[in-house]
């Protein structure tokens, strides 16, 4: 299935969750905030949120800024 991660299409196997997605793209779950279809997901739910075809994921982190 296809999901949109930070605006890029990603092919994922069916029946996957946010924790697996983070591992696949190599992102440390402790260093990002994740939005799933516009909702902020707390880290303890990463394993429980199952992804579906067409879902939108935003992975956001802190960078330098004024």
């Amino acid at each position, binding site marked *: 299935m296809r999901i949109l*991660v*930070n*605006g*890029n299409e990603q092919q994922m196997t069916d029946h996957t969750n946010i924790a697996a997605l983070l591992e696949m*793209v*190599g*992102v*440390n779950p402790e*260093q*990002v*905030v994740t*939005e799933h279809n516009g909702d*902020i997901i*707390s880290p303890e739910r990463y394993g429980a949120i199952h992804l579906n075809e067409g879902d939108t994921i*935003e*992975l*956001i*982190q*802190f*960078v*330098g*800024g*004024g």
Partner: protein
Amino acid sequence: MVPAQAVGNQRLDVNYILPDTPSEVLIFMNLLQIANRTFRSRLMVGTGKFSSHQAMLDAMEHSGCEIVTVALRRVDINNPQDSLLSHIDPKRYLLLPNTSGARTAEEAIRLARIARAAGCEPWVKLEVTPDPYYLLPDPIETLKATEVLVKEGFIVLPYMPADPVLAKRLEEAGAATVMPLGAPIGTNRGLLTRDLIAIIIEQAQIPVVVDAGLGAPSHAAEAMEMGADAVLVNTALADTPDPAAMARAFCKGVEAGREAYLAGLGPKRQQASASSPLTGFLRNES
């Protein structure tokens, strides 16, 4: 916020301030109070555009700052990097997430909520800048976002045009400070808005933090001499050959300006006023 009276220039080593310390005592201690927190430093530093994390950390260290701003962006999933937060000690610095990149109140509110979800204290430097060329803040969207975020329990520090009427509206909406711009972000042009900032300082009951456009320690000193409560700089440090040295210079500029303000500047005059006696000249008056 104008102190009731000038006080001395000594810096007291205060490690812990009781939350209900009267404001008169804080003024005597020359501390900056924003919402429920007090700070010894009146210089805030942005973390953008430094050539390396080490250069940023050195500048922060030498500036003496206690508040640093950070931004939120998408992770580059093709090349994930460590979060900036893994380099900054949260016990030493209060992280002030900004909403840079937001073009509307809605986008800014979303960024503020993301920052809080990341575990930050609920402080936010609110920025809504729809114009990509001058990055000037949108007053209407900024006020709207302030109203929403204050209701959600955020401590809101809005970046704003140097408009005294807007400053009062933001204060009434519950902003913790106002942050009028001296000049457009990153321009290093100084206090182009000084006359309006003077009015904001005169009228504000909350701290006035001059943000954006300050490019030299003299600019920071001038803002502090006028009675600003604090200043925020980033480009002025990051975009120089030696950010740590410039951070030290800004620290001195801010302290000098603050002390001058507390001491009270002498009056300006049109005509000369001799400093030396006007009698006893070495000539015979005819």
